[in-house]
């Protein structure tokens, strides 16, 4: 189902963002996993989302992984690879964890962008300043989102969000120029 969104309102909200927190499965992955005969499991992530994460870090927006559904440590490995310290893994109550993080960073819910895809994300999304859903999130989540990315989970929603936020904050063009000249590592 398509949900009509007020893009200008989402842009205004994006200007305030100081923390991007997101679910792992269904956002960084397409929510599937491989299981082989030895019980070994595999998960797929997308390279471009890493550019989104690194851009946030470089331009001063904190990133946090908030995951409840992981079976293994795939989210942790991905966060380690990207050198992101705030990876909260197998968290039972995501809302409580996010509240803790806000106090620690001395920011308000208005300064938080949250990306979620399923029912356990809805309460958080109603609370934060900017709520984002990937294109293939469940309908109830898309309904409460301020903005729905064109990309489905695991196919670039974080990369797309990075561009959306930095364009809103007026930092995108300079960043593109810098990356084009110098890279971003």
């Amino acid at each position, binding site marked *: 189902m398509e949900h009509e969104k007020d893009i200008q309102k989402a842009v205004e909200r994006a200007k305030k963002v100081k923390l991007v927190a997101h679910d792992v*499965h*269904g956002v960084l992955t397409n*929510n*599937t*996993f*491989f*299981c*082989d*005969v*030895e*019980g070994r499991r*595999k998960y797929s992530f997308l390279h471009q989302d890493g550019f989104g994460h690194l851009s946030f870090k470089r331009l001063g927006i904190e990133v946090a992984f908030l995951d*409840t*559904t992981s*079976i293994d440590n795939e989210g942790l490995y991905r966060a380690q690879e990207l050198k992101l310290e705030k990876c909260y893994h*197998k*968290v*039972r*109550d*995501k*809302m409580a964890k996010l509240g803790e993080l806000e106090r620690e960073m001395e920011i308000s819910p208005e300064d938080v962008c949250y990306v979620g895809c*399923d*029912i*356990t994300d*809805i*309460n958080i999304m109603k609370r934060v300043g900017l709520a984002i859903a990937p294109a293939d999130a469940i309908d109830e989540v898309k309904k409460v989102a301020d903005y729905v990315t064109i990309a489905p989970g695991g196919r670039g929603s974080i990369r797309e969000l990075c561009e959306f936020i930095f364009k809103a904050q007026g930092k995108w063009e300079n960043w593109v120029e810098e990356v084009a000249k110098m890279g971003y590592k």
Partner: protein
Amino acid sequence: MTTQAAVEKAKKVKFVILDIHGVLTDLTLYYTDDGKKSEVYSLHDRLGCAALKEAGIEAAFLTSKITRIDQYIGSIYKIDRLYGTSAKITQLDEIQKEFGLTDEEFCYVGDEIIDTGIMKRVGFAVAPADAAAEAKAVADYVTKTPGGRGVVRELAEFILKAQGKWDAVVERLSKTGY
């Protein structure tokens, strides 16, 4: 079959029996060059199984043969009952005896011709969006989701909404994880 008729049938469900291949998977088998097989599953279905359990509805896998992969998936989804037989109706008789439940209280999800016999027996028969035409023809409800992409998640929501349990289950799972 109207949605309202399916809702009425879903209200009575106390036990959900799931075929594995074509329901929990999209039927694709991956082999590495040294012969190790993998299959792809959806974490949506893990939530679906957790939601059914939270609502007090039993769930079991029923497929012609239980492989090691099926056992791993059973342990991840916290499904203890794994039945490996292609005589699915006989197995249903045995489960009914053990639990003292009637045909009406069973939901069965299947995608192929082999499933149509048991699907005609149970109260609430469900087929994934991409099931064989024969299975969809005998289904009371066809999910919007294709096999391997969250059929159980969609079904759990459908049954629990019909039974008026969904909101409470969502609230509990949001606080406790699963």
